[in-house]
């Protein structure tokens, strides 16, 4: 039931404001967006949203926001911020969502580069940040805030409240009766819908310009492929500045007409998820990993009978649950056992996690550990991987139902063509391909060829049944001095599956052998320490604990054993590693805002440690600058132990096997 496809004038509904009017007409009394406030889910119908957005759009116009102007959107997922997107689009302005937790310097770059004139922000915190930024970005004329708390004494004349803007909008609309409709009609599918800044694993963020056709076509195609209807329940909790949120919580909602719910606060997401019971859910692997880790930790604390039941039925689920979900043949006794498990374990567990009603779940962004992936599928959750990028409006490949594998990312999405370059790099072409990088023709030309093919920067290949498999970033795949293949991401992901390990950075390109930095997971290891009466005051102290080193060494050796089984990768076993004295942190620039490791930056910053790993010494000294949560800086000094891990020969493994 696609709203647009069943309408005779579907071809005219080529922008979100046009779709909004259509939804208000067709399903005016159905909920469009919800937010939990004061402990209750408050809903707005499509008709109400349409009125709110009209008032807002007219207000923005009355305050001087013109066609082609940019309006920054900064804050958590809130209905009013989503409305701002459509309102801006209605009058031809371009929304530019910005990561709300980025530090002032990063934010200032985006605001300056995008030539932002207006900003819609969530609360006082963001008002303060933008007021500071405004000094270096004179183009930023007006700041509008949603939540007025704490702002009563602010007398700046460039500040307006959301209500003020809407009030002006209502007056303006009354005086210019057909202004809103005329403005909406002026935009078409090829106009710019949104500008999204990529998180920038390398260099400055780039502003990806997406047209209405890009976003809407992709949203419609994917909604059709997965059979999304107006009945879906979706929780919008991922950063609005991320393309995924724009498709899953905005684009597809408009394409299929379903209701999107915003959590009460960032801390309550898990709880809200459970209350809402979404039918369609997206999360990066990290979140699935965190959920699994917390389940396993809580099971450790459960009584022994519960723990035994859990482990017994999880083994049943792993054996036959995935096969049942894939529609393969499973014996009757196994099916009965699985059904019993569903009553005793899987059902209640899914309920606690908020996955009871889930029909479709996606993960993407990074490779997911096969065991994590299998855990959810075994529970009967249709978790699929997809492969995408901002430049593609998300979808490049999707795993079709019944063809789910942990180690591939699926087949090309509807309308998308894929080819593999000689260098191994994956390239794609399709309806979602971005228009350009804003004010950066050089980067556009580097990424997008004249006939529309886009470089992904990822290395991969198609396997025999037509599924794409991504190994690593094309530029990251390296070789050891001996010429053997070194795929750092592959090794890191293998290690990160262990709940004790949070982050890994592997080194080895043009080196004699492979080494790694490891971050322990404070939740998992801390829980272990608590149960074993081990006192620790900080992350650093826990990381230095000899028992922790021993456990981590065992994990590394397990990975080495696995690697030795694969003839292509057996050379890249980890010979030496160390446990870092601090957690890698986006505030220190070590991770991107989407929590990806910035390898070269880390190699640079911790050069003495890397040297220590390769010069045979037993310890390595380091002094690093850290940024505390209140913005102050300090230094951490540490003497880290370098640990040697056992490696395995491919032959030795064979011997063992025989």
């Amino acid at each position, binding site marked *: 039931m696609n709203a647009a496809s069943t309408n005779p004038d579907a071809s005219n509904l080529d922008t979100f404001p046009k779709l909004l009017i259509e939804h208000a007409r067709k399903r005016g009394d159905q909920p469009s967006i919800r937010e*939990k*406030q*004061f*402990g*209750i889910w408050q809903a707005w119908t499509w008709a109400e949203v349409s009125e709110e957005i009209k008032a807002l759009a007219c207000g923005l116009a009355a305050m001087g926001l013109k066609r082609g102007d940019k309006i920054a959107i900064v804050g958590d997922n809130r209905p009013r911020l989503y409305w701002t997107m459509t309102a801006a689009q209605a009058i031809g302005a371009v929304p530019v969502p910005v990561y709300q937790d980025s530090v002032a310097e990063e934010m200032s770059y985006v605001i300056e580069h995008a030539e932002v004139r207006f900003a819609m922000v969530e609360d006082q915190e963001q*008002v*303060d940040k933008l*007021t*500071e930024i*405004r*000094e270096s970005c004179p183009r930023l004329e007006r700041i509008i805030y949603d939540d007025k*708390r*704490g702002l*009563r*004494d*602010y007398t*700046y004349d460039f500040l307006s409240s959301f209500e003020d803007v809407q009030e002006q909008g209502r007056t303006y609309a009354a005086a210019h009766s057909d202004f809103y409709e005329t403005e909406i009609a002026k935009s078409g599918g090829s106009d710019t819908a949104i500008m999204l800044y990529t998180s920038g694993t390398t260099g400055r963020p780039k502003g990806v310009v997406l047209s209405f056709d890009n976003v809407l076509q992709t949203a419609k195609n994917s909604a059709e492929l997965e059979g999304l209807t107006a009945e879906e329940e979706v929780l919008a909790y991922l950063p609005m500045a991320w393309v995924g949120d724009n498709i899953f919580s905005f684009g597809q909602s408009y394409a299929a007409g379903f209701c999107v719910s915003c959590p*009460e*606060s960032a*801390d*309550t997401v898990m*709880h809200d998820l459970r209350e809402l019971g979404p039918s369609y859910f997206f999360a990066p692997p990290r979140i699935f990993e965190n959920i699994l880790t917390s389940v396993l930790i809580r099971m450790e604390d459960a009584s022994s009978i519960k723990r035994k039941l859990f482990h017994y039925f999880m083994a049943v689920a792993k054996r036959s649950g995935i096969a049942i979900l894939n529609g393969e043949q499973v014996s009757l006794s196994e099916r009965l056992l699985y059904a019993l498990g569903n009553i005793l374990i899987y059902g209640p567990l899914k309920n606690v996690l908020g996955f009871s009603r889930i029909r479709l779940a996606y993960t993407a962004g990074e490779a997911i550990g096969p065991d994590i992936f299998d855990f959810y599928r075994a529970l009967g959750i249709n978790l699929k991987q997809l492969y995408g990028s901002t430049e593609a409006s998300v979808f490049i490949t999707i795993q079709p139902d019944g063809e789910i594998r942990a180690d591939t990312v699926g087949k090309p999405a509807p309308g998308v063509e894929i080819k593999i370059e000689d260098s191994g790099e994956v390239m794609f072409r399709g309806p979602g391909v971005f228009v350009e990088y804003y004010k950066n023709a050089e980067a556009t030309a580097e990424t997008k060829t004249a006939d529309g093919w886009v470089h992904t920067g990822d290395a991969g290949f198609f396997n025999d049944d037509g599924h794409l498999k991504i190994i690593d970033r094309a530029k990251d795949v390296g070789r050891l001095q001996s010429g053997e293949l070194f795929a750092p991401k592959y090794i890191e992901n293998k290690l990160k599956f262990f709940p004790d390990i949070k982050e890994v950075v592997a080194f080895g390109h043009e080196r004699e052998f492979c080494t790694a930095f490891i971050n322990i997971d404070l939740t998992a290891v801390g829980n272990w320490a608590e149960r074993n009466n081990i006192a620790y005051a900080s992350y650093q102290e826990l990381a230095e604990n000899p028992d922790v080193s021993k456990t981590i060494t065992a994990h590394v050796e397990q990975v080495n054993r696995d690697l030795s089984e694969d003839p292509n990768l057996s050379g890249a076993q980890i010979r030496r590693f160390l446990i870092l004295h601090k957690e890698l942190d986006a505030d220190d620039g070590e991770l991107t805002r989407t929590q990806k490791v910035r390898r070269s930056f880390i190699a640079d910053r911790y050069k003495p440690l890397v040297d220590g790993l390769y010069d045979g010494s037993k310890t390595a000294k380091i002094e690093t600058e850290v940024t*505390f*949560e*209140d*913005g*102050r800086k300090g230094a951490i000094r540490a003497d880290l132990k370098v640990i040697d891990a056992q490696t395995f020969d491919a032959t030795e493994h064979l011997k063992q096997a025989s």
Partner: protein
Amino acid sequence: MTAATLERSAPPAQSEAPTPNARRNFSEELLKVEDISLSFGGVKALTNISFDIRKHEIRAIIGPNGAGKSSMLNVINGFYHPQVGTITYKGQARSQMRPHEAAKTGIARTFQNIALFKGMSTLDNIMTGRLLKMRRNFLWQALYWGPALKEELEHREKVEAIIDFLEIQAIRKTPVGRLPYGLQKRVELGRALAMDPELLLLDEPMAGMNVEEKEDMCRFILDVNDEFGTTIALIEHDMGVVMDISDRVVVLDYGRLLADGTPDEVRANQQVIDAYLGVSHD
């Protein structure tokens, strides 16, 4: 502690903003204590203390250990009864306050050692703050129907607004005994706020907190003062915090009043400096 996060309603760009006192006009007296003396047997806890608290201000009471700060708060809300002196609250003078009178007339407080119901949820703890405002008797409440239900909903609405205000939605249903110390302090503030107080007494709201928790707490105290217009009297040891957020400061030492004035005046007062840093006797 960064000035930008703590300085009263001064956004970063406005560093030359006038001091709170100059911008805000506190003329109306809310509470006045005159010549208060309190002793326990032979121990004189307070001697001839007089000062006032004006409407809408943040008033700090500071002093070294054992100076009589907590005793002073206990006198104000009626836990202790001074032997000498009068307390004038909202124009009504009395020689001693009684705790239930204090509560009924709009004085709420938090304690140095958290005094919450550990086994009850955050929501229920804050709900207890509404108890004095409930009109229906327990039979009605047990029925949970009609007027009692309506009343419960009204109170719940108020409590939810406080939960939203203090940003503790995520722990709404968590038993407070399981919460970290900083959050428990916040819940206690929530319970005091649930009484719709005119005068809020905070006994060391930031004791034992880390820098981040202190900053949050400061923000909440300032916001309470701003949004609800609540008058606040607080005892605090962290000088940085006191000087940043209060409008006027009373300094006590050995039960005597040492100084009374704006943070700047108090900071410059030689007696205060001596009391805090010690004096050399040579």
